[in-house]
């Protein structure tokens, strides 16, 4: 029947709907998806009847990918059907965002962050406008009130990405102008505020100076017991003519709050640390109770396990409040022992690691104020019992029972406590069987061996959670971002055995479309491309994304590497991964100043005191570094150091990843060095070296090196037998081919607590490659580190080195002397072993070990060295201060065959009662050291006592006196006590 009052209407596009689809086209032809992907998305096929709902769904599906900003569908009649054309406009995504012309502060990075344009997110003109406003706002806050900010948007159609550059011309930074004090009866005058806040009139206005000034004003009032101070600063007026900002400051000092502690003494710094009311000035029950709990913790750590603390607000008016904490410390106690029994599944150490109750004694402390008397209270014990129970339950012991009791005995006025913990483990519930479903792309068997709930293992929620994390991590890393995990458990006939079922819904994987790199300006593209671990058309892996980011950072040429998904909200099967890099500045110049303090002999003809005197010298350094040479991530540097003790220039060219391999690196270096690090002489060394580094695996490295050096010794500084000076001071050229094998399995190279460190260095000097002396050098080191208990470490190292010359036996290679042998003269003095000091044998001053010149007593180096050190490293105070007990043994020996374990130094009387000493014996030193942990390694102080320090004959006088027969020979001895100050562990 007819519908009254209504007129029929044609449905939009009804002329075409119902007709067969003759063709499907896209305009423009270049689309972000392949033809197959488009077919899958639109679900409309040629030949089928055109349907309005399906067409609408197609438009929605295309739009939901996020790749289109607009889609219209055009229809035309064609061959009794309808040809469809999808007219599309692409959407754009944010790519590289950079700011140029930043005034510093704020920096370009700060301004770029302020734009809030996030890598990979959809780009809109509104976002660009807001970003410009944000840049202006940050500049204004930093005192730049008349900046110009322009933006340039460069579109990369292939990547549907916009790269945006903001160009900033900040203008002049405003100055601080008038300072108006707001409020009635302001507590400070304008002058006082300027003085305290550091807001001098005419000074540059910088936003970071405002909070600094506010802090200083607050501190000013806190000293007067005003603990809730509010300081407001506004800059409402800007004078463009004078370029000055008027500051309006309002100060509300708040009431005075006095906090009193009764019943025990508490230092002011501890009140500030433990009582929040002192710091925050807010009187509310929560904060006051927090202070009470802090005090209880503090006094319990001091052994007052039964301490009680109350608080009350004694008086509270608008102007003044008084808070009183009353402490009843009670009897001082000591937790002598914790006895744990009944445990067999977990060892006692594992259980103790989960306990808050601690025994008294010399043990690692929690902070500087650790529990020397132990840590105990009833609630802490109750928590521990619950924690132990949870540990068992989490591992399948659902019937576990843990009980505790405390026994006390009095010793004098102190109560000595023993805590007994009894564990009734019961029987564990075991996984009888594990069935997995839905693991289609990762076979269950591959993962099964890693499952915590594998058959035979304990059944617990914790184990299942571990498995869930493992499975989902595998899936996420393989691109299955929507993977879901479910589980259930069913009992078996045995009450203590269950069957566990894992059900995994894998979902569809998201693939990587392609990685897109932006921000590369000077670096060669292939250098970056080779570091990308992401492979197009493979599942999108988070691990590979992070690995790529790390690889790019490892190049050392990027100050920032951001990784993000493009179009994160879009419903795409494949995503682009964006890698936005920011190249670091290529040139870096560093200046430094400092001082050297060393025990070095005087650089004069004076021969007295071969052990050396303390020498102080100012030191200046200059470093010039050029990163990313030739755009290949190579580095060139030039470092100089100048002081009275050393003048040094080092040029280095480094090519990491030589041959495009992570395993190879090339280093070229040139060195000029004049130094006095050995008492006996001042050497001038010019050296060139070529080194290849091969990383065999994570722990093993091999270095192949050729070094050619010319060493000259200033004969005026050579403190040896005068007749030998012309010979020894001859310049010598040494060409060394060497290979070094390094095996490093230490947990932390800076402060090792476990692991092993082995090195073997073999060198050959030969005339075949330009060396004047021919000799073979070997140096081998073995160090191991063993953890003792929780924080103590035993570390030991042994080092053996030798030089073996050959050829030219006429010089006197063979040494017929059986007493007080001399170093082989075929080895130049500059190539000999020198040892002693903070980093080798601590029983000696720096480089004072080994043979000495018989006439002057100065060390002349040796042909071999043997050093053995053992250290016990233990915590001393808090977490940052540790102690060390050590024993160093060894020496530098005249020749390889003269290495001896003999502990007594040989001495014999030659003519006229003059003694001759043998230096080929083992010197022992024991000592104690302190380590203070810092981010760059421990600061070290060692005091060593040498049990058998060497004696020697020295000469009091000058070289001229020695030659002239004047002066006096005198028997001397290395001081038995040696003090060393250094950075880093000894080995």
């Amino acid at each position: 029947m007819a519908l009254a009052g209504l007129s029929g209407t044609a449905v939009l596009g009804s002329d075409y709907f119902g007709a067969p689809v003759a063709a499907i086209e896209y305009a423009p032809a270049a689309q972000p998806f392949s033809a197959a992907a488009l077919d899958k998305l639109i679900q409309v096929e040629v030949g089928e009847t055109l349907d309005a709902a399906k067409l609408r769904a197609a438009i929605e599906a295309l739009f939901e990918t996020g790749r289109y900003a607009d889609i219209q569908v055009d229809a035309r009649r064609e061959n009794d059907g309808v040809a469809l054309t999808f007219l599309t406009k692409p959407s754009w995504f944010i790519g590289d965002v950079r700011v140029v012309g930043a005034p510093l502060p704020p920096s370009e990075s700060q301004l770029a962050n302020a734009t809030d344009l996030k890598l990979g997110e959809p780009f809109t003109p509104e976002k660009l406008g807001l970003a410009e406003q944000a840049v202006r706002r940050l500049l204004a806050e930093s005192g730049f009130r008349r900046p110009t900010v322009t933006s340039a948007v460069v579109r990369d159609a292939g990547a549907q990405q916009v790269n945006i550059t903001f160009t900033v011309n900040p203008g002049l930074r405003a100055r601080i102008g008038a300072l108006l004090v707001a409020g009635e009866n302001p507590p400070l005058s304008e002058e006082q505020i300027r003085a305290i806040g550091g807001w001098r009139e005419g000074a540059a206005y910088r936003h970071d100076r405002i909070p600094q000034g506010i802090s200083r004003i607050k501190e000013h009032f806190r000293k007067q017991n005003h603990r809730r101070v509010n300081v407001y600063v506004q800059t409402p007026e800007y004078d463009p003519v004078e370029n000055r900002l008027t500051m309006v400051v309002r100060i509300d000092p708040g009431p005075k709050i006095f906090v009193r502690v009764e019943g025990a003494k508490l230092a002011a710094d501890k009140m500030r640390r433990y009582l929040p009311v002192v710091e925050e000035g807010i009187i509310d029950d929560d904060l006051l109770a927090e202070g009470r709990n802090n005090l209880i913790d503090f006094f319990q750590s001091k052994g007052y396990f039964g301490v009680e603390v109350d608080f009350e607000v004694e008086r509270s008016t608008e102007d003044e409040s008084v808070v009183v904490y009353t402490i009843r410390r009670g009897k001082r106690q000591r937790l002598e022992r914790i006895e744990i029994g009944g445990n067999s599944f977990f060892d006692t150490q594992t259980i103790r690691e989960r306990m808050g109750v601690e025994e008294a004694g010399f043990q690692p402390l929690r902070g500087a104020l650790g529990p020397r008397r132990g840590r105990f209270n009833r609630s802490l014990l109750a928590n521990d019992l619950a924690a132990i129970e949870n540990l068992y339950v989490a591992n399948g012991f659902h019937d576990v029972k843990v009980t505790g009791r405390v026994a006390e005995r009095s010793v004098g006025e102190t109560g000595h406590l023993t805590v007994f913990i009894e564990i009734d483990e019961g029987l564990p519930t075991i996984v009888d069987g594990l069935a997995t479903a839905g693991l289609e792309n990762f076979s269950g068997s591959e993962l099964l061996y890693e499952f915590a709930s594998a058959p035979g293992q304990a059944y617990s929620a914790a184990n299942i959670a571990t498995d869930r994390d493992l499975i989902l991590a595998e899936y996420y890393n393989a691109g299955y971002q929507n993977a879901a995990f479910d589980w259930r458990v069913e009992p078996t006939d045995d009450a203590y055995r269950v069957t566990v079922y894992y059900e995994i819904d894998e979902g569809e994987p998201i693939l990587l479309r392609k990685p897109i790199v932006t921000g590369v300006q000077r670096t060669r593209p292939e250098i970056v491309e080779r570091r990308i671990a992401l492979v197009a058309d493979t599942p999108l892996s988070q691990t590979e994304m992070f690995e790529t980011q790390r690889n790019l950072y490892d190049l050392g040429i990027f100050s920032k590497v951001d990784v993000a998904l493009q179009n994160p909200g879009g419903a795409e099967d494949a995503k682009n991964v964006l890698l936005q890099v920011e190249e670091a500045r290529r040139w870096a110049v560093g200046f430094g100043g400092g001082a050297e303090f060393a025990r070095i002999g005087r650089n004069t003809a004076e021969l007295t005191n071969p052990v050396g005197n303390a020498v102080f010298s100012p030191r200046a350094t200059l470093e010039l570094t050029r990163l990313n040479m030739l755009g290949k991530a190579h580095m060139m540097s030039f470092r100089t150091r100048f002081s009275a003790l050393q003048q040094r220039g080092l040029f280095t060219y480094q090519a990491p990843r030589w041959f495009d391999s992570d395993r190879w690196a090339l280093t070229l270096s040139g060195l000029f060095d004049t130094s006095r690090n050995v008492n006996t002489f001042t050497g001038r060394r010019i050296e060139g070296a070529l080194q290849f580094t091969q990383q065999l695996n994570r722990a093993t490295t091999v270095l192949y090196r050729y070094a050619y050096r010319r060493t000259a010794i200033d004969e005026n500084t050579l403190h040896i037998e005068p007749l030998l000076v012309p010979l020894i001071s001859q310049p010598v050229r040494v060409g060394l081919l060497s290979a070094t094998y390094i095996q490093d399995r230490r947990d932390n190279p800076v402060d090792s607590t476990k692991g092993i460190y082995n090195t073997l260095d073999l060198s050959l000097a030969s005339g075949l490659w330009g060396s004047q002396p021919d000799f073979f050098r070997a140096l081998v080191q073995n160090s191991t580190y063993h953890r003792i208990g929780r924080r103590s470490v035993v570390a030991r190292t042994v080092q053996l080195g030798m030089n073996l010359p050959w050829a030219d036996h006429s010089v006197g290679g063979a040494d017929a002397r059986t007493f007080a042998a001399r170093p082989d003269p075929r080895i130049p003095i500059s190539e000999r072993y020198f040892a002693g000091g903070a980093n080798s044998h601590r029983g000696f001053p720096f480089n004072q070990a080994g043979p000495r010149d018989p006439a002057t007593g100065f060390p002349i180096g040796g042909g071999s060295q043997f050093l053995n050190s053992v250290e016990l490293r233990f915590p001393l105070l808090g977490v940052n201060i540790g102690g060390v007990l050590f024993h160093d043994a060894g020496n530098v020996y005249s020749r390889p065959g003269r290495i001896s374990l003999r502990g007594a130094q040989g001495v014999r009387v030659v003519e006229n009662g003059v003694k001759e000493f043998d230096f080929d014996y083992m010197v022992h030193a024991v000592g104690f050291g302190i380590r203070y942990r810092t981010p760059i390694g421990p600061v070290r102080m060692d005091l060593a006592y040498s049990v058998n320090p060497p004696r020697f004959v020295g000469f009091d006088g000058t070289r001229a006196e020695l030659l002239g027969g004047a002066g006096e020979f005198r028997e001397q001895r290395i001081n038995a006590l040696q003090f060393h100050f250094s950075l880093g562990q000894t080995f």
Partner: protein
Amino acid sequence: MRRGFSSRLQRWGRLAAIAAMLPAAVGLRAEIIDGIAATVGAQAVTHSEIDREFRLVGLFNATAADASAADRRAALQRLIERRLLRQDLDQANFLVAAPLEVEKRLQQLQAMRFAAGMDFPAALRHYGLTAQECRDFLAEQIGFERYVAFRFKTGLDASEEEIEAYYETVYAPQQRRLGGAPAPPAEVSERIGRILIELQADRLLEERVRELRALTRVEILAPELREPR
């Protein structure tokens, strides 16, 4: 009385006229048979949806499918609001209407609208709709009603004072204007209470829409559907 927002959602038909062909909405190219009219975050509102909206409204409210530009703009705004609220609804599966509920609602509407022996299939043909489109429309409507009831009406109440004030300031004057005598307060207080709850729920719903609008980028691509300045 001000018409409530939820009431508008429930009675879209009374707010819109029948959609006409959309030559303006699709630009001047007559060949364009569909396309995006507006975007709401990652979702699109198509011209054909606006067209269908008019037809559905026309079907259930017995209004013409022809519509002015203002009507089409209003229809688009309703679709945008529904898209925004869809974010909330998608997080609560229990709001989804069961097929039986939809069928029952359809029968109720047929009984009301076509009680006088009018032919429902003929009406569908007249409006260019299918029965499934009607069911989808009603399912969505039921979901929204539940959403409003669950999220906004739960815990709402009207106090005696509020009912009394409404009686004095709105109900009684309105009755007098219509020429009748207002019923005693005791007789209408329960009904006024329900109205007040509806109004409160409307306010909360509008607030939620505003929140979602602030969080979601809404862009109207078709110039003729933008609000005139």
